[in-house]
């Protein structure tokens, strides 16, 4: 008898004494399967950590004027009346990152594309008032034209949209 066969023999002998009986009773009676289980047994371990707090913005959403979103360097928080030719609705610049967002939020459709000041799609005529640029506009601007995607009003303004 070779050594390898001897090894297998001793192994099978060991399993005979232990848990792994192919037929016969299970050594641990708690593992014996009942009819069926409604809930599968829970694995041991820490209970799943529950989310116990809500992650709300650190300002009161009800009073957006106190939010920190509206800080523009070197500018008062701009709140200005706006008027767009051909629209009778009173408009106001309020709580927006730039003029384009403010107009869109109030239902005025402006052509746009890059929203970063280089494509020039939102080019608009400024008839009255003043705007301040948050970043330098790169698109070509004629006198009296502004790029709403990268500016905010500095005073009450009157606009004429390109068609």
């Amino acid at each position, binding site marked *: 008898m070779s050594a390898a066969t001897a090894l297998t023999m001793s192994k099978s002998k060991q399993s005979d004494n232990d848990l792994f009986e192919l037929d016969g009773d299970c050594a641990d009676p708690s593992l014996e399967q009942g009819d069926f289980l409604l809930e599968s047994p829970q694995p041991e371990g820490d209970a799943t950590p529950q989310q116990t707090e809500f992650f709300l913005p650190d300002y009161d959403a009800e009073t957006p004027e106190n939010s920190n979103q509206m800080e523009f360097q070197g500018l008062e928080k701009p709140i200005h009346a706006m008027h767009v030719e051909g629209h009778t609705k009173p408009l106001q610049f309020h709580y927006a990152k730039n003029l384009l967002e403010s107009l869109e939020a109030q239902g005025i459709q402006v*052509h*746009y*594309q*890059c*929203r*970063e000041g*280089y*494509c*020039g*799609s939102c*080019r608009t005529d400024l008839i009255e008032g003043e705007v301040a640029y948050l970043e*330098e506009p*790169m*698109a*070509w601007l*004629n006198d009296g034209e502004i790029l709403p995607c990268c500016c905010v009003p500095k005073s009450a303004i009157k606009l004429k949209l*390109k*068609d």
Partner: protein
Amino acid sequence: MTYQTFNRNKFDAFSQPMFFGENVNVSRYDQQKYKIFEQLIEKQLSFFWRPEEVDLSNDRRDFAELPEHEKHIFLSNLKYQTLLDSVQGRSPNVALLPIVSIPELETWIETWAFSETIHSRSYTHIIRNVVSNPSAIFEDIINNEYITKRAESVTKYYDDLIEGVSYYQNLGEGTHEINGETVTISLRDLKRKLYLTMASVNVLEAIRFYVSFACSFAFAERTKMEGNAKIIRLIARDEALHLNGTQHMLQIWATGKDDPEMGEIAAECKQEVIDIFKTAAEQEKEWANYLFKDGSMIGLNKDILCQYVEYITNQRLTAIGMEPLFATRQNPLPWINAWLVSDNVQVAPQEAEISSYLVGAIDSEVSLEDFSDISL
């Protein structure tokens, strides 16, 4: 007269017009006549991307499942894009570099053309991923009459300018006998050719490309060929910069401050420029007819694409101070804007690549708060 790679003349760089002045000598950017070109270079460099960054494995499967007429739309569109960028990857260099006279503009032209070569490489990336025999597609760009017809109108102004400039640089102004033909070369005529070339390049970048983008995005709107659309988005972002550059050149000339003669030419050529736009719009409509010859696709058909051609032509005309040509005022494809925004809003970074990710950018702003948790 002959081009000099390093001009030994002493001259004031600020007194030079954009083109047809002294050849550029020192590439210096500390003083700039037109800082917009420096800004464009900066922006273009910050946009740098590689086609291999975009995974196209899903597109291969999508493409195999497309019905035949949609395969035709997709491939024809891709062939057209390949043609346009093949032209744009070399022509600005060949046509404009020999005559440019200010260093920041010279570098912008090189940066511009370089980014077009990335676009060309990305078409190969797409074609290689989508079909098993790329040669058939590339060869058809030369053979297909619908494509070659368009190649002619895209390149004729460039070729005209290149020919004129080479005669001018070899022989100078005057009447010359060349290969048995009498050719009259005048600087003013060359400037005219340059102006018209720029108008036709503007049409290429601002209208022709956008019509092709509309088709690419129409597939992705139906969640088909999304990898392709992701690449086209990056290309569209670059194209917006390029057309900004051509619009600036056209507008600077029109003011007459850069070169008074160019100001006169701009006024003279107004009708010709409008005709270039008009012809291009007609050709794009014909192309739409060819694209949808075997059937429409969901979300896009010949009529809508033709309306988009009219809309975008109007937009580009008004951008260079011309009157709109067509009655269409509303964008017939409003969803295209979401694809053209340079920094699309997204909720989770894994959903899409952040296109504004700047390569080599450093935020050097330091506030007092940054040191709040440091104690000595």
